[in-house]
């Protein structure tokens, strides 16, 4: 606590006196009131799920929901395509891209197992998605004007 000025340095008592005056002015020797209980009791005593975990769970739930909705819509779309092509023997140009992508996604070969969402492109109904299905698709493909 040594403070000096240009000419005569302050001795330790003078430096302490200066510090004491500042401390008194700032209210160091005052008393802090008891903190409001609401200010520190608003949080639970123990945190069962840290915020990070809750955030991750929420993200996982949103992703799972999105996948579920997409899966349902995809299956419904393929079913309607198959029904339409079987009934009319034609496929519209607008459906072409979707069907090609679906066959590419679902193609498992003659003895491959079929994904539950791929029933829409099992055109010959033999329980798999193979080149025979692709051929059926080609046969039924036509441009609807």
């Amino acid at each position: 606590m040594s403070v000096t000025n240009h000419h005569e340095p302050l001795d330790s008592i003078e430096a302490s006196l200066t510090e004491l005056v500042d401390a008194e002015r700032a209210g160091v020797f005052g008393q802090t009131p008891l903190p409001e209980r609401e200010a520190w009791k608003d949080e639970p005593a123990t945190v069962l799920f840290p915020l990070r975990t809750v955030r991750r769970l929420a993200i996982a739930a949103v992703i799972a929901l999105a996948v579920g909705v997409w899966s349902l819509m995809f299956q419904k779309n393929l079913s309607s395509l198959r029904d339409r092509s079987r009934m009319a023997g034609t496929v519209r140009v607008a459906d072409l891209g979707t069907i090609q992508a679906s066959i590419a996604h679902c193609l498992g070969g003659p003895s491959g197992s079929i994904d539950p969402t791929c029933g829409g492109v099992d055109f010959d109904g033999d329980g798999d998605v193979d080149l025979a299905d692709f051929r059926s698709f080609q046969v039924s493909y036509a441009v609807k004007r």
Partner: protein
Amino acid sequence: MPKDRGAHVRPTAPHSVAHPDDHSLVAAAIHGDDAALRTLMDRYDRLVRYTIFRTAKRQCVRDPQWLDTVASDSWTGLLRSLRREPGKRPTLLSTYLTAIARNQTLSALRRLRPGLSDPPRQSGSEHMADLTAPHPEPVDFLSDLDSLALLRECLADLPEADKIILSQLNAITQRRWNEAGEALGMSESTLRSRWKRILDRLRECVARKSGSGVAPEDDRSD
């Protein structure tokens, strides 16, 4: 200044009902025992306030209300932290509180001046001086605080005539003897000799109260 004392704010060790230890008080306080919290604050509030003062001296002098707010935030921070992790207890509450008070002070300073955490560009910035000041250990704070408390007691014991001279402390410590002498209605030489006597009296009083035989300043080699 003696560095080996801390009786005013240092906790008492014995485990008894009359002097419960810090851990018992903390446990009771976080379960809503206001009396336990008050006892803790009696022990450590001055340390908290002094830590804030030492960390941001100029801001505290400028705005004493600010110190109150930061002190209150420090206690709230302590209770929140202890409540959040009930299994963990600080080994030394004084060290823990000093760290919390310092962090709360720095956060409050940054709220006042958002760019405060940047490196200082010039040495004249008072807030920067506060932030870049060396960070003393709690034991140093306690020792300095005790010394100030002793000096405060000694000042109260001074005769009224000496207290009047102390009203010119600012001018005297800036060595504006002539100006201080005029304000007090005495010559510069009289003021100088009386000031020396006051300092000796205070030095002797502090040494007596602290129990250490501190030699008069003039007898020291420095």
